[in-house]
Every structure is written in structure tokens, then in C-alpha cells.
């Protein structure tokens, strides 16, 4: 294992990837930290107070994993299509579809079916709903050549309107006060895996799913087809790959990922649907997938980073009185710098190749 890591790091491309990403992340946090001076908050003090509290309190520490759980899924939702050079930016809508299905099924079968079976049923139906909602985008892309970027974006707003409609009518809480659902029965909640925290089984599920998607992408013929379509669609078709089938399945898997994020939020953390909650989970998923360069395993680490930034941001708000928007400032800066680091990585690679060429000639 250690040897494997060593060989990975001796590969200059991988080393550049790690180094430039770390520099970009630090630069992003530094720049946003400097902006704290504008509201006369000492950024170093604020950061250290927040970090100390994350490190000393297991509840807060576990929150990083809790926040990362849905982000791993929305990250995967973007990453999987990204590998096929397709753009599913509708993870937000697929997430809301997932929350609606999860809460509706949990509420209706929660008291009838025993918990364990019930949770499996809810999860399966969420996957189906997400796969259909995402797969339809793939279908029109494959059959009609429609712009998937635009359609997935629009499908989010349709899902939001649909959710708001349900929260105003049939799914509205029995008290009828707020646009939110009732709380799901206790038997339908995912078990907590770390006592005294909110960390639930969903995190394990998220990590396993990411590993599975990685295996599918890099170790199966289907994954090869996905990447072939992504690298060069016309060449893939020439080689006999059914690109429209690949597109549809890729989008269905991607949609299922978005919906699963919703399932985990409903059955794992919130136990209900509240109008407009988690409004940035889709966009952050895109940032995470970019940070990971579309690699499912990388998505886990990137999601942990984003979860960590969110928790640090919350702690800073509580202990150092920074505004809540500061979290998004950090996330936006980090993502932007990571994108810029892609450019510098390319320049470094070109320079290295040039050097190799020059060395080769002079020998």
C-alpha cells in the first residue's frame, strides 16, 4: 500500500496534481480570509478558534462527514457524466426529486413496514425516480441532440416548482403552518454510527458508492465506453460503441446519484423536507467534481474538504461572528483557484515535456 502511494508520487503528473491543488486551496482560503479584515475580524484568530473547536469536539468534527455525505453524491452526479464529456448540472433538481420521493414513501409506509425493509424500499424507489429524471435528459440528448446543459439546468427549476407545489398541498405538514413536511417515523431513520454525533450510515454508503463508481468507470467495459465517448465521441462510434445508449445510462446513473443525496438528507439528517433547503448542494457538487477532476475517489476527498470548509464557516460564525455568507466566499474562491491551477499544471507539464525533449536531443 505504502509502496503504491510512493510510486504514485514518483509520477510527476500526480505530484503536480496534489501540489497545485493544495496551493490553490490555501490561496483560496487566504484570499477570502483577507476579506475578513474589511469587517475588522482578525482572520487568523477566527480560523484558529474555529479549527480548535472542530478538533476538540467530536460532534463538530463528525459534522464534517455529515455535511460531506450529500456532497459526495451530488459531486458524483456531475463527475460521472463529466467523464463522458456530458454536463449534468441538474443535480440540484435530482436532489429535490430524491427528497420528495424519500419523504413521501417514508411517511406512507413508515408505520406499516418494518424499518429495515422500509429503508431499503425508500432507497430503491429514490434511485428509480432519480434515474428516470436524469435518464430522460440523457434520452433527449441521445435521440434529439438536445443541449443537455440547458435541459438539466431547466429541469432543476421545474423540480423546485413541483416541490413547492407539493409542500403547499398534499405533502404539507399536518399543522399546516409552514411549507414543510411532517417528520418521518423513527423506524425509517438511518442508524447513527458514531454515538453522540449526527453521523449516520449514509456516509459509509457514500464512500462505497464512490468506490463502486470508480470501479465501474475504470475496471468495466461499460466504464471504458463512457470514457471513450468522453474522449472522442465520433471515434467511439466508429469503434462500434453505441453512444446513445451510453449517454442514456450515464445520465440515469448520474440522476440516481443526485436523488440519493436527497434520500440521505431526508432519512439521515433532517427527517423531513423544508422548502428551499440545501439550495447550493448541486452547485457545490459541481465544484467538488471539478476539484477531483471527475475522479469518483477524488470526489470523496473534495467533498470532505467542502464539508470541512462549511463546518469551519459555521464555527466561525458562532465563535468569531463572521457572516454566514463567508462560507460561500471561501468555497467560491477555492473552486476558482483550483480551476486556474489546471492552467498552471498544463504549463508545467508542457515545460517538463519540452525539457525531456531537449535532454533527449542533447544526449
Amino acid at each position, binding site marked *: 500500500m505504502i509502496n503504491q502511494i510512493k510510486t504514485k508520487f514518483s509520477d510527476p503528473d500526480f505530484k503536480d496534481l496534489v501540489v497545485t491543488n493544495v496551493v490553490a486551496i490555501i490561496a483560496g482560503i487566504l484570499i477570502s480570509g483577507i476579506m475578513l479584515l474589511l469587517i475588522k475580524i482578525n482572520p487568523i484568530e477566527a480560523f484558529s478558534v474555529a479549527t480548535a473547536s472542530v478538533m476538540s469536539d467530536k460532534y463538530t468534527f463528525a459534522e464534517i462527514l455529515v455535511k460531506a455525505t450529500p456532497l459526495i453524491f451530488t459531486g458524483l452526479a456531475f463527475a460521472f457524466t463529466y467523464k463522458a464529456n456530458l454536463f449534468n448540472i441538474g443535480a440540484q433538481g435530482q436532489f429535490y426529486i430524491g427528497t420528495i420521493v424519500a419523504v413521501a414513501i417514508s411517511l406512507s409506509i413508515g408505520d406499516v413496514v418494518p424499518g429495515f425493509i422500509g429503508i431499503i424500499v425508500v432507497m430503491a424507489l429514490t434511485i428509480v425516480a432519480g434515474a428516470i429524471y436524469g435518464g430522460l435528459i440523457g434520452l433527449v440528448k441521445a435521440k434529439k441532440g438536445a443541449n443537455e446543459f440547458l435541459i438539466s439546468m*431547466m429541469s432543476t427549476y*421545474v423540480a423546485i416548482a413541483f416541490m413547492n407545489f407539493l409542500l403547499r398541498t398534499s405533502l404539507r405538514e399536518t399543522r399546516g403552518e409552514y411549507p414543510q413536511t411532517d417528520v418521518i417515523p423513527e423506524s425509517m431513520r438511518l442508524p447513527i454510527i458514531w454515538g453522540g454525533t449526527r453521523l449516520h450510515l449514509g456516509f459509509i454508503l457514500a464512500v462505497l458508492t464512490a468506490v463502486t463508481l470508480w470501479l465501474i468507470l475504470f475496471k468495466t467495459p461499460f466504464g471504458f465506453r463512457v470514457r471513450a465517448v468522453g474522449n472522442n465521441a465520433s471515434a467511439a462510434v466508429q469503434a462500434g460503441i453505441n453512444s446513445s445508449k451510453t449517454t442514456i445510462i450515464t445520465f440515469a446513473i448520474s440522476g440516481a446519484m443526485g436523488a440519493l443525496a436527497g434520500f440521505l438528507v431526508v432519512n439521515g439528517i433532517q427527517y423531513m423536507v423544508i422548502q428551499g433547503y440545501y439550495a447550493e448542494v448541486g452547485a457545490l457538487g459541481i465544484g467538488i467534481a471539478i476539484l477531483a477532476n471527475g475522479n469518483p475517489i477524488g470526489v470523496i476527498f473534495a467533498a470532505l474538504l467542502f464539508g470541512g470548509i462549511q463546518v469551519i464557516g459555521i464555527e466561525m460564525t458562532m465563535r468569531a461572528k463572521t457572516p454566514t455568507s463567508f462560507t460561500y466566499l471561501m468555497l467560491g474562491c477555492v473552486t476558482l483557484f483550483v*480551476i*486556474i491551477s*489546471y*492552467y498552471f499544471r498544463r504549463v508545467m507539464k508542457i515545460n517538463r515535456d519540452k525539457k525531456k525533449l531537449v535532454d533527449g536531443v542533447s544526449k
Partner: protein
Amino acid sequence: MIDTLATALMMSTPLLYGAISEMFTERSGVMNTSIEGAFLMGAFGGFVGAYISGSLLIGFIFAIISGVLLTFIYGIVTVKYKQHQVVTGTALNILALGLATFLFRVIFGIPVIPLKVTPLQTIAIPLLSKIPFVGPIFFDQNLLTYIMYFIVPASFYVLYKTSYGLIIRSTGENPEAVDVAGVDVNRVRITMLLIAGAFCGIAGAFYSLTILGLFTSSIIGGRGWIAFAICFLGNWRPYGVLFGALAFGLAEAIGIRFMVMEGMVIPNEFFIALPYILTIILTITRNSFNIPAKLGVPYNKE
């Protein structure tokens, strides 16, 4: 009825500003996917400028500066550094959200009562506004809507009848030829993005300074993306864009109208979703697109 149509025209104004600017950038071969963020920065900058100075004009100037700043960063990263446009846009949209909300807090602290400015008023044009039916719809609007009437023919003229328009169109279709002719491809694209930033800034400020008179972080709520879609559905042509903007403005006006009506058979959310559903249907059903050949492809000088 007349009210709804007048509202429709007003609501389509910012969409048209955004979509026309998107048309110009896409014609030059680069998508402005930071459009939602540019709208938000415009709404923010416009409100700040207007609130502090007390002048709407200064507000709109601030809006232009804020929008241009965002698209400038976008242009550097996508055109100069050649990074992926969808990906960069997403990052900038998150950043714009954080930046606008954070700076709002920096400037105003936590206000006890929501801060407001007096919105841009309508100016009834003498005589013309007295024409039955047409008058109250078209000639009792605000200044920016009046300017909108001229933007479409003007952009048609620039795009198809001037030499710079030809350069813009060629940059999107055949950048190599433009390069050979001695024109800097990247400079054309960045110029288009900066102009788009100005237009999107005004469009965003339209929400904070004309429609509402206040600023919230959710003020744009996807309207930037609607403008993005309108450019697409308008087939990258000025009059197509005009038609799209009017259709979406009308859908929005109908949504507002039904929101205040009680006991509706069709739920109000349906009308809110209608523009998005329409976009999906139109995107699927249209086959012949006038899509610029090099849209989204960075130009590499060999």
C-alpha cells in the same frame, strides 16, 4: 389585461438585455456561463451605488462595473487560460453569491429594517401613451424598457451590417481565418464578454432598482439562466431573442397575476415552472440550429 401586458414588457426587459449580450458573446465563440453571477453582481452593485449616493444613475454605473468585473475574471480564466467554460461559470456563480452577500454585510452591517431605494419610475410619453390599448402598454414604461426598443434593431445592425459584426460572427465560426486576417481572436472574445458584463449588470440592477427597490441574495433566482436559454432558443438571432424575451416576460407576468388570484384551478407553481418547461420543449423539438461552429472551443494559435 393591459396591466398584464405592460408588466410582461417590463419583466422581459432584463431578460432581453441579458440574452442579447449572451448572443454577442456566443456569436464570438464563447459562452458566458457566469451570466447568473453577473446578474447578481449587477443587482448588488446597483443597489449599493444607488443607496449610498441616492442617485439611480450612479447605481446603474456601479452595476455595470460590478458585472464587468465578474465577466473580466471569467474572460481571463476561459479565454486566456482556456479553462472549461461551464466549470468556470459555476465557480464564479458560487463566488458571486458569496461575494455579493458578504460585501452587503460589510457595507451595511445587519440592518434592523430592510434597506430600500425608490425604484426607477415609469415615464409616460406625452400623446403616445394616450393611444388606446397600445399606449399604456408600450409608452408608459421606464427608461430602460424604452431603451430596449432600440437595442434589438441596433444589435441587428451591428451584427450584420458593420465590419466589426462580421469579425464577431467569423470569430465564432472560423477563428483561424480571423487570425490570419490580423485580428486578435481572444481580444474580440474578451471584448464581447466585457460588454456582456455591462449589459448583465444593468439587467441585474433592473431587479434591485426598478422592480423591487431592494437587494436580497435570492433576487435573481435563475433569471440569468433564463436569459442564457433565450439566446439559445432565439437561435442566436436578434429578433429570435426578442421573441424569446417577450414570451418569457409574458409567462412571468401571468405568474404574478395568478399569484394574487384566489381559488385557481391551475396551481400558481405551474405558471412559475412554465418558462422552464417551455425551454425544455423548445430545445427538444427544434432541429435546425444556427449554433456558432466554435461555441465553447478555446482558440489555440498554432
